[in-house]
């Protein structure tokens, strides 16, 4: 949970803040586990968003104080949360009817890999001795209208996570709309990865070098990206 400042690019909280800027007022949003969970804290003043957690709550509020809350009021990551005014509880089939039926406007998820076609891999590294576990990720990407991914641009080992073709098992094909990384904001378009925005202090070449597929420069923007 510590958030040390990286040498270059955004911290995880800065990434969450950047995602939050793009969440439309009045939308119904599902936030995945990890960095996505932090997005709620950075919603700009004046916007109201209703958070859905797939284990049966609309109108999810922030975590309660430590040691407070109800062990039976939790989010999909099994952390204690609160319920805001206007909340509702419902069972799992109704909850996934909201997801599968296209009623959730936006979902923010983490990723192992995203391909230039918008394929997402975020549930398994495919290791043979790993216990497979998928949760609600496949339902979310199949059902939610807009899928944002928030992720480090590269793995700890320095491998790109934005790739031509995912080598990890897919969560869903052609589902990702936009990627928010520590280095850039990248749209998935019919032409592939389209750079939208660079993190401060990062230039196009730096990001392109760390992207495992062609990266189209900002439209109408400078290749250096520091305009």
């Amino acid at each position, binding site marked *: 949970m510590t958030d040390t400042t990286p040498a270059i690019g955004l911290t995880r909280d800065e990434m969450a803040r950047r995602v939050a800027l793009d969440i439309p007022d*009045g939308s*119904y949003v599902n936030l995945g586990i990890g960095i996505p969970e932090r997005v709620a804290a950075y919603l700009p003043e004046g916007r*109201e968003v*209703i958070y*859905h957690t797939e284990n049966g709550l*609309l*109108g999810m509020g922030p975590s309660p104080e430590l040691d407070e809350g109800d062990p039976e009021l939790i989010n999909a990551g099994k952390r204690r949360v609160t*319920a*805001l*005014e*206007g*909340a*509702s*509880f*419902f069972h799992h*089939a*109704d909850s*996934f*009817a*909201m*997801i*599968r*039926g*296209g*009623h*959730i406007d936006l979902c923010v998820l983490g990723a192992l890999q995203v391909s230039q076609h918008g394929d997402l891999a975020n549930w398994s590294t495919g290791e043979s001795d790993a216990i497979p576990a998928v949760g609600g990720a496949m339902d979310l990407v*199949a*059902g939610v209208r807009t899928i944002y991914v928030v992720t480090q641009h590269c793995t700890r080992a320095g491998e790109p996570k934005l790739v031509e073709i995912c080598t990890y098992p897919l969560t869903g094909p052609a589902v990702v709309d936009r990627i928010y990384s520590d280095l850039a904001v990248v749209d998935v378009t019919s032409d592939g990865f389209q750079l939208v925005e660079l993190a401060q202090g990062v230039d196009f070449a730096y990001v392109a070098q760390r992207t495992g597929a062609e990266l189209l420069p900002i439209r109408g923007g400078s290749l250096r990206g520091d305009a």
Partner: protein
Amino acid sequence: MIDKRAASSDEAVADIFDGATVMVGGFGEAGSPIELIHALIDQGATDLTVVNNNTGSGEVGLAALIRAGRVSKMICSYPRTANSTVFPELYRSGRTALELVPQGTLAERIRAGGAGIPAFYTPTSVGTPLEEGKERRTFAHRDFVLEYGLSGDFALIKCRVADHHGNLLYNKTARNFSPIMAMAAAITIVQSGEVVAPGEIDPECVVTPGIFVDRIVTVSNPVQESQLVAQGASYP
């Protein structure tokens, strides 16, 4: 602040377009959103496909919409009820089409439409004339037919209490098709007897979560269809 209240029934139904599929809540008069239907009659949209268990009664509400020639097709399970004379005439004259669906299949198709399920298998109608044209398939030595999810462009429903977010509570058996129609329609328009601030409805008791609701109109004293019919009223 999220606030889905519309200023009036007229404003709430203003964008219903010609050719739209409109799901209308209610089982007989219980849960029929009669004020919204009357606003739709005033509004003028035509060539509508209407989904409702019945076809209304007398010459008010849904029956009045049909009588006004606005409905080119009804999808329902029981178009023949007491005081239902309008639809039979138009049906016999070929001016209104009918898709007859068993009631439980109708409910499940609407729920599927709202839940992102394109099709499902059900035992209902196997071996009957209503199986005609359906795909049959055997699971575990029993036969079933394939049925398709049903979605709407709009839903018009009635409830007892709504909050600004669109969380809804219903009244007794007036609940019927409304919660699933709210799920299955792109735009769900609600007339509510009462509208309260978020937080006033117990989150454990919400029947329709606000995510399924788009517009709310307060209709504090809705007319009662059977009373209007008994009085021989007709709309407009």
